[in-house]
């Protein structure tokens, strides 16, 4: 079938070639290479020959099961309870270690548990850290994508005005984007420290009611702290994209709505927002993809700790591939991440399609 792309379009293809070539060389080929590696036992450093291991790497990463544990019973057949009346359970390690009766759980580790009646349902995974990193990454995306997008839009609306010295504000909001993320992460590590700026401000504002806390050292607050910092850091970038979208909306539409007597909200709802449709899709997809790639902040600020509360998929891929020299395992994580991001991007495209 002849189309504009194939007929007498040599110049077009010639112009596209450098771009396509670079994309192929640095994105497409490495991806297929990673996919191939993830099916082997390739090591970063090893004199041993590479062997094909099929889906072992994926099995080791994704293996997950639910283990039902009955409470301990004493000789009389009664359930043993501790002082608070809660039933006592045998340790998970009695099932997962050297227990020939439960070969399917061998080498697995508890992720979390819930109770149904007196039976404890324990979710055990072959690689708990990877599952935690998946959960952390998804939680990060779920919060950062909408909040960062909305904040950026708010800032864009604020600076899209004819005010004196508005460029100064634009520069201020954009500044964190220009600074290296490593530097920003280091600075925020000091802000979040136990004797850091954030604690002393909160202490002052609450007239001494607020006790300082170690934001990055507490599993409950560490990921939240990194979310806040990441949103602040990249919000300026998306503000600029929103701004460019805002400036493509024709002033005549605003004049018309003003003549019609539209309120500020109505103007935003029926003129600005529909005009930003394509920008919104772009911003959403870009933020989502950037959020999935969360790495530098983790590497500088927490190293995935405390207790795996901030570990992410990309951090795990690097840690495994380079730190632990397991290139095939790192490649498997990259492939899983690729499929995950691809799926989510396709869903987003579908949901935001032109109806």
């Amino acid at each position: 079938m002849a189309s504009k792309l194939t007929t007498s379009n040599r110049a077009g293809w010639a112009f596209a070639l450098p771009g396509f070539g670079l994309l192929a060389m640095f994105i497409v080929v490495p991806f297929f290479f990673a996919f191939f590696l993830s099916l082997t036992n390739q090591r970063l450093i090893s004199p041993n020959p590479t062997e094909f291991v099929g889906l072992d790497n994926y099995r080791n990463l994704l293996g997950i099961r639910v283990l039902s544990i009955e409470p301990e019973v004493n000789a009389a057949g009664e359930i043993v309870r501790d002082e608070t009346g809660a039933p006592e359970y045998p340790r998970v390690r009695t099932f997962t270690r050297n227990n020939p009766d439960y070969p399917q759980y061998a080498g697995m580790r508890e992720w979390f548990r819930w109770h149904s009646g007196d039976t404890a349902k324990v979710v055990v995974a072959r690689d708990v850290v990877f599952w935690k990193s998946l959960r952390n990454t998804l939680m990060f995306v779920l919060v950062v994508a909408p909040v960062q997008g909305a904040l950026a839009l708010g800032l864009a609306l604020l600076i899209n005005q004819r005010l004196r010295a508005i460029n100064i504000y634009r520069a201020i909001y954009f500044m964190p984007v220009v600074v290296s993320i490593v530097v920003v992460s280091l600075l925020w590590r000091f802000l979040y420290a136990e004797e850091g700026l954030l604690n002393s401000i909160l202490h002052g504002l609450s007239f001494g009611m607020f006790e300082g806390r170690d934001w990055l050292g507490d599993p409950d607050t560490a990921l939240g702290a990194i979310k806040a910092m990441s949103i602040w850091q990249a919000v300026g970038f998306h503000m600029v994209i929103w701004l460019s979208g805002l400036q493509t909306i024709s002033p005549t539409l605003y004049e018309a709505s003003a003549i019609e007597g539209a309120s500020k909200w109505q103007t935003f709802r029926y003129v600005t927002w529909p005009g930003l449709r394509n920008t919104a899709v772009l911003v959403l997809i870009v933020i989502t993809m950037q959020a999935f790639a969360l790495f530098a902040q983790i590497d500088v600020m927490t190293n995935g700790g405390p207790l795996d509360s901030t570990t992410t998929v990309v951090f795990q891929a690097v840690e495994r591939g380079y730190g632990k020299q397991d290139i095939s395992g790192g490649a498997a994580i990259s492939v899983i991440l690729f499929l995950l991001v691809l799926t989510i991007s396709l869903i987003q495209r579908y949901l935001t399609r032109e109806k």
Partner: protein
Amino acid sequence: MNLSTTLAGALVASTSIVGMAAAQTELTMWYHGGGNEVESDLLDSIVTDFNAAQSDWMVSVESFPQGSYNDSVVAAALAGNLPCILDVDGPVMPNWAWAGYMQPLPISDAALDGHLDSTIGRWAGEVYSVGLWEAAVALYARQSTLDALGLRTPTLDAPWDTEEFMGALEAAKASGDYEFAFDPGMAWTGEWYPYAFSPFLQSFGGDIVDRSTYQTAEGALNGDAAIAFGDWWQSLFTEGYAPVSQDPATRDTGFIDGKYAFSWNGNWAGVATLDGGVDDVVFLPAPDFGNGPVIGAGSWQFGASGTCEHPDGVAAFVEHALQDEYLAAFSDGIGLIPSTTEAAAMTTNYAPGGALEPFFGLSEAQALVRPVSPGYVVAAKVFEKALADIANGADVADTLDAAVDEINTDIERNGGYGH
């Protein structure tokens, strides 16, 4: 790939200029001390002396920042661009030797005479690398603290046992004079954890892997001794003796400022502590937790890369560098422990009566190298994470079990690492 090509290009460019000047055979060398002027000057003077002293070899040095040094070597090795003389961290050497990045060093036994054993890197029965210096860890304290709390001063022959050590921490905590009784150095993530803390585990009777076979960590890292160690380690933090998280600045100055009563720190911090005004600092030996007192050993060493065509040239250079005057110069310059008693006598700090002399005794009496295995690189990472998790309150037995599984899987996937 790209990085190493650039590096190789730079290397070729920089070495060809020197190469034209003489008929000596070119030997390139990579060093981990990039950015440290004192260290670079010391090494340069050794290299200049060596190049002038004989007519066969011409050494040229390329320095890298320590943080990215190992990555640079691995990248260069994958691309086949290794230099001839490699600088290697002691515990990493077996990994590189096993992978073929290094070859045995044909050095004469005479040159190694009198060297601290832990400065000689051996793998599969052969010498691969030799170090000009050693490092050691001690329990920093003030004599005034010991006196005020009424504590016995431990010695190499009679170190504190578990009870005395915990009693000392309790006394320091009860005195209320210190923010924390004990500073293990939690801020120094990375190799510090296995280097500084695995000796505690070994003193309890456990280890990172079972050193009789190097094929499993089962029993060594999750046996009764290891679980006792884990419980003790966790109690340091739950009982409030030590801070779980610490920023690097406090690590550097906390003991000097009097925030901590005891600090677990290396000889390299000794000079700074004395300069910081702690005149009555004492360097106490590691406590004995039941299986003898232990500190870590093995520092940076020199060896020949696997692709080097002139290992005899490398050996000649290393033999030249091992002269006592250079060992002493390095020690005076950057505070490290010289490898021989003779060199120690020539230094300001490690000579008999010198301020840091106790460290030399510690290295001789308590030092135990980290597991000599290519798998150590991975095991060290796993161990670090396990200790951080336990300090943060994770279940001790489960965490150690998981660490054992991860180490064993890694050993298995590497076909036993050639032991």
